[in-house]
């Protein structure tokens, strides 16, 4: 226990429905200590910097497998980090969201260890399957790097979805929970990308925002979870059926996004939005 540990994070990490061994690791190399270390500062950002409000937390199951499908919003991962944090800080049913990491991260030193300790495995279909079969909560961004690199002018427009997540959900019999993240595109408005630098670093893209540093502006953000969706099948369906299912998920994500956009009084909002259970004027 360290001085900087967040109390709520520590309590909720202890309540996670995950089996840890004598050394505080689970069977995928996830570390309890690392979770508390990493989520403690995240919780601070969540509450006081990006002032995130979460809606629809009642749709997150207390235990058991599920696949959260979210939009990418802002190119530097603040969206993913805040979605993961909202799940940990959910006192009703704290869960650990486990993401699928970019290949180039998992082969670089330090990053691969850090990701592994936090439960984010290399983005392989086998890993998604293993996690869901182990009753975990997996988070996917089916837009992929295409969606993360969205410019400000294309904000909140969903780009083409990959089909892997739907086959994964069908194969493992996991419900899909649609999720929308609002505010990331204002917190880090991407004006343009430096292509040659991306090539040099071997990464997907290098965005440039008005703040000129890789750090979000303190814009208030919101996370919306929708009701779980289940689909019939075993993952071996032909593409047109899969596409049809994906369109349904896409539709409910678009509905969540427009609800979220309509609920904001203005796009560059710097004060926290009132939560679902809080009283008083908006």
């Amino acid at each position, binding site marked *: 226990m360290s001085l900087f540990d967040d109390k709520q994070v520590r309590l909720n990490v202890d309540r996670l429905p995950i089996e840890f*061994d*004598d050394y505080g*690791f*689970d*069977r995928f*190399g996830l570390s309890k200590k690392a979770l508390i270390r990493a989520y403690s500062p995240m919780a601070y950002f969540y509450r006081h910097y990006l002032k995130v409000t979460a809606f629809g937390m009642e749709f997150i199951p207390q235990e058991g497998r599920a696949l959260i499908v979210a939009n990418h919003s802002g190119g530097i991962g603040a969206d993913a980090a805040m979605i993961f944090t909202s799940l940990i800080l959910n006192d009703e049913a704290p869960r650990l969201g486990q993401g699928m990491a970019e290949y180039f991260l998992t082969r670089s030193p330090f990053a*691969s*260890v850090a990701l*592994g300790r936090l439960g984010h495995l290399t983005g392989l279909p086998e890993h998604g399957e*293993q996690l869901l079969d182990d009753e975990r909560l997996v988070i996917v961004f089916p837009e992929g790097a295409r969606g993360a690199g969205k410019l400000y002018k294309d904000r909140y427009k969903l780009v083409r979805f990959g089909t892997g997540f739907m086959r994964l959900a069908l194969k493992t019999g996991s419900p899909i929970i649609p999720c929308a993240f609002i505010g990331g595109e204002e917190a880090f408005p991407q004006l343009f990308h430096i292509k040659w630098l991306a090539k040099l670093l071997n990464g997907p893209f290098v965005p440039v925002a008005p703040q000129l540093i890789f750090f979000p502006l303190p814009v208030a953000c919101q996370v919306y979870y929708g009701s779980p969706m289940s689909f019939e099948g075993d993952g071996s369906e032909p593409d047109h059926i899969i596409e049809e299912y994906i369109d349904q998920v896409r539709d409910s994500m678009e509905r969540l996004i427009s609800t979220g956009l309509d609920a904001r009084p203005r796009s560059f909002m710097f004060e926290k939005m009132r939560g679902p259970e809080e009283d008083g004027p908006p």
Partner: protein
Amino acid sequence: MKILITGISGTLARGVAYRLVQRGHKVIGIDRRPWPDVPEGVEMHQADIRKRPAEDVFRTARPDALVHMATVTHFTTSTEERYRINLGGTRKLFEYCHEYGVGQAVFVGRHTVYGATPDSPLYHTEDEPPLAGAAFKELADLVAADLYAGSALWRWPEIDTAVLRLCYFLGPSRGGTLAGFLSKNRVPMVMGFDPLYQLMHEWDAEEAITLAVEKQLRGVFNVAGPPPVPLSTVVSATGKRGIPIPGPLYSTVLGRFGFPYLPNDAIAHVKYPIVIDTKAFVEATDFEPRYSAKQTMEGFRWN
């Protein structure tokens, strides 16, 4: 049952021999190395598996089952010799099994045959191809032997062949690959990497091999015990000191400065995990490890 164990003087093989004798089987052993205080119930032949006297054992003793553990690693032997023993020897033994009517053959291989790469999944299943040879040439002969043993399933269907891919083991004998890596006080780690390591107690490994013989397994099976732990935990729990070394310098320090020797390609196995799925083996044998990772590592530390 009359069971022939090749490589019987090895660490695990002796334990397997004891266990089989205890359960009322007759054990015959072949090894180039002697086993001076061979226990009662074990008939020892000091011979090379590739030579005539080994075939004579098959011809005269007519065993019911073979447990093939006469494989060598890069720690002891040159490349050519390894191919001759691991691949040539395995081939000879399976031919003898076919020729002399041995009904069952168990090949004890290693889980490292899957290979360690950054983009391979955790929990390898038996239907994944063993890829280690591509990136780690010192393992290519063992990969070939593993595949050759597996091919016996269709080549000689009358023999019940089991190929076991066994994870690292640690135990009081202080033998085996991982024990060698942990033999010095300082253990070379690769800076910025800390892969999951799957290890089991030596006695559990012996028990698993014994079960494979008794249950007359057929097919390829991954064998492991408790869930994996990060290498840094293995190092600290066994009372060693992990020294992080930048990747590019890694091969330079091996065998120097009090670090153990490893071939250059072994660096992948210190950077990336090899973790195996053991569902099939557990289903077939009801195997349950008696020792947790913690007990195994601390036992190794204080032994």
